C-alpha cells in the first residue's frame, strides 16, 4: 500500500511535468521566470545538480573495480543503477531547459569541437551508454574492470568539462574560476555519497530489513568519507567567497557578492556544508542511521540550492546593452512551472529507482 502511494505520488509528479512540457512548447518559455538576463535558471541548475550527483555516484561505484576495495561491491549494483536513474532525471531537466531539443541531432551533424558544451554532450552520450552496459554486466554476471574504469574516467571528464564550460565565460567571472574543474567533481562526489547513503539506508529502514554487519561498516565508512568531503568542499566554498566575494574589487563580481546574502547561498553554506560536516565529525551521531540520514539529506538539499546559487551568480547582473533600463542586479523567484520541471526530473529519477528496487534485485552482489 505504501509503495502504491509512493508510486502514485511520483506518477502525479510526472503527469504535472508532462503538462509543464506541453505548456512550455505551446505557450513558449514565458512560463519560466524569463527575462533576457536570467537565461539560465532552476531547470538548468537542477540538471547540473543531478548530473554531478550521477558523476559522484560513478566515483563511488568505481571504488571496487578501479581502486580494488572489494567491500564496496556490496552496493555496486545499486550505485550503478542509481547513477542511471539520476542521469535520466537530469536529462529531463536539460530537455526542458533547451529551446529546441529536437535539434540536438546537430551536435552530431554539425559538431564544434572548440565548444565545451559539444564535448559535454558527447561525453554524456558515451557515459549513458557505458552506464547501461555496466549495469547489464552486473545484472547478468560480473562487473567488467575495463567498463568500470571507463565509467570512472568519463565521470571525471564530464564533471571537469563542466568547469571548462563555465570557465570559458570571461565576461562573467562569478562563473569563471579555474578551480571549478576541481570543485565540480568534488562537490559531485559529496552529493553522490550523500545520495547513496540516503537511498541505501532508507531502503533498509522502509523495507524493515535487518542491516548486516558488513553493510553497517560500509555505511559508517561512507558517512565518514562524506563528512571529510563536505569539509573539503566547505573550505573551497569559503575561499571562493573570500576571493570572489569579499576581497575582489571587480564590478563583475557584484553578482556573486549579491548572492552571498541570498537564501540559496545560506542554505548551501549552513544546511548543506556546515551542519553535515559537524554531524559527521561527531562519532556518536555518525554511527546512527538517523544521523547519516539527516546529514546526507541536508547535504543534498544544500547542493541543490548551491547549484542554483552558482548559476544565478553568473546571470543576475545584466551585461552590456541588457543592462539598459534594468536594475544593477535582477531578482529571481522561480515560477511554478520551473519548480514543476525540477519536480519532473526528480520524479522520473525516483520512479526509475523505485521500479529498479522492485524488479532488479539491486541488493545483489556481483560474483
Amino acid at each position, binding site marked *: 500500500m505504501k509503495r502504491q502511494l509512493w508510486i502514485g505520488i511520483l506518477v502525479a509528479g510526472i503527469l504535472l511535468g508532462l503538462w509543464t512540457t506541453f505548456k512550455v512548447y505551446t*505557450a*513558449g*518559455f*514565458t512560463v*519560466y521566470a*524569463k527575462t*533576457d538576463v536570467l*537565461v*539560465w535558471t532552476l531547470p538548468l541548475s537542477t540538471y547540473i545538480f543531478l548530473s554531478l550527483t550521477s558523476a559522484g555516484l560513478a566515483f563511488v561505484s568505481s571504488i571496487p573495480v578501479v581502486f580494488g576495495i572489494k567491500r564496496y561491491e556490496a552496493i555496486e549494483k545499486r550505485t550503478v543503477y542509481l547513477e542511471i536513474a539520476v542521469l535520466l532525471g537530469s536529462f529531463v531537466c536539460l530537455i526542458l*531547459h*533547451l*529551446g*529546441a*531539443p529536437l*535539434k*540536438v541531432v*546537430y*551536435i552530431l*551533424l*554539425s*559538431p*564544434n569541437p*572548440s*565548444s*565545451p*558544451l*559539444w564535448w559535454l*554532450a558527447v561525453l554524456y552520450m558515451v557515459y549513458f551508454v557505458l552506464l547501461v552496459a555496466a549495469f547489464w554486466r552486473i545484472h547478468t554476471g560480473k562487473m567488467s574492470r575495463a567498463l568500470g574504469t571507463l565509467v570512472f574516467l568519463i565521470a571525471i571528464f564530464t564533471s571537469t568539462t563542466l568547469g571548462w*564550460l563555465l570557465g*570559458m*565565460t*570571461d*565576461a*562573467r567571472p562569478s*562563473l569563471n574560476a579555474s578551480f571549478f574543474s576541481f570543485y565540480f567533481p568534488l562537490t559531485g562526489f559529496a552529493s553522490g555519497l550523500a545520495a547513496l547513503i540516503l537511498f541505501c539506508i532508507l531502503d533498509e529502514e522502509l523495507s524493515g530489513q535487518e542491516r548486516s554487519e558488513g553493510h553497517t561498516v560500509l555505511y559508517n565508512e561512507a558517512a565518514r568519507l562524506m563528512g571529510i568531503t563536505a569539509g573539503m568542499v566547505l573550505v573551497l566554498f569559503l575561499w571562493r567567497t573570500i576571493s570572489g566575494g569579499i576581497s575582489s574589487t571587480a564590478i563583475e563580481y557584484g553578482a556573486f557578492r549579491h548572492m552571498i546574502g541570498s537564501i540559496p547561498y545560506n542554505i548551501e553554506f549552513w544546511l548543506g556544508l556546515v551542519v553535515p560536516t559537524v554531524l559527521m565529525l561527531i562519532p556518536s551521531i555518525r554511527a546512527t542511521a538517523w544521523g547519516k540520514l539527516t546529514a546526507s539529506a541536508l547535504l543534498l538539499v544544500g547542493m541543490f540550492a548551491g547549484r542554483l546559487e552558482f548559476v544565478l551568480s*553568473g*546571470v543576475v547582473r*545584466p*551585461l*552590456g*546593452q*541588457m*543592462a*539598459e533600463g534594468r536594475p544593477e542586479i535582477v531578482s529571481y523567484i522561480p515560477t511554478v512551472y520551473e519548480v514543476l520541471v525540477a519536480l519532473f526530473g526528480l520524479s522520473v529519477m525516483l520512479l526509475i529507482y523505485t521500479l529498479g528496487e522492485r524488479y532488479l534485485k539491486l541488493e545483489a552482489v556481483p560474483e
Partner: protein
Amino acid sequence: MPRYAMVIDLQRCVGCGSCSISCRNENNVSEGIYWSHKITETSGTFPNVRYHYIPTLCNHCTNAPCAQGCPTNAMHKLDNGITMHDPKKCIGCRYCMINCPYGVIYFNWKDAHPSWRGNKAVIQGATSSPAEEVRKVGGNGTPYYNPERDETLPGIRPKGVVEKCTFCDHRLKRDKLPSCVESCPADARIFGDLDDPQSQVNQLLGKFRPFRLKEALGTEPAVFYIRDFSAAGYPRTKGGI
C-alpha cells in the same frame, strides 16, 4: 574577401534611434528583441549631470566567444568577419548569451510579434484585429514584413532559438549597406572593409583615437567608436581647494 567593420562617430550621433527602427523593419525583429540598441551612461553629480548614448549592436568579434562555445555551429563566423546565426541548427541552450560580454544576443521566449497575433478588434465592427490587418496587407507575422530577410535567414525566427544582428548580410550580398547605416540621418555610422587600407573605415580609424567595448577581454570587436559629443564649454580654470 572583405573583412567588414563599422565605425560609429559619437560626435555625429544625435541619439534619434532611427538605426534601431530601420533595423526592426529590415530584419522583422520582434518585440522585446533589440538587434540594434544603446547603452545610456550618466556622468556627474546632481546638479552637474549629463548622459551619453553609446549605440550598440553585435560587435562581430574576431574572437567571438559565442561562436566558439556554440555546440552545433549555429553561431559561426563567416569569411567576411560577420558572426552569423543559423536558427535551423540552434538548440536553444543559450550558451552564446552567457558567453557574449555585450548582451547583444536575444532568445525567442515566445512566438514572434505576439501583438500582431491578436484576434480582437479595438472597436468591434469598425476596426480590424491585428491578425486581420496582417492578412489584409499580405504580411507574414507583421504587416510590414520584409521578405528580403528570408534570403539568408528565416524572416521570422521561431521560438526557442536565439537571434542577433547580422550586419544585414542579405543587403551586403546585393552591395547595399546595412540598414542602420543607410538610415542614419547624421551619417554617424560608417561601414567598410578593414582589409582595404583606403576604405573610409580605415581612414577614420587612422585619423581619430578609436575605442571598442570591453577591449580587455580580447574579443577583437569589429565595431569601433570614435570621438564624443559635448556642446558644453567651461571657463579656463585650475580648480581650487
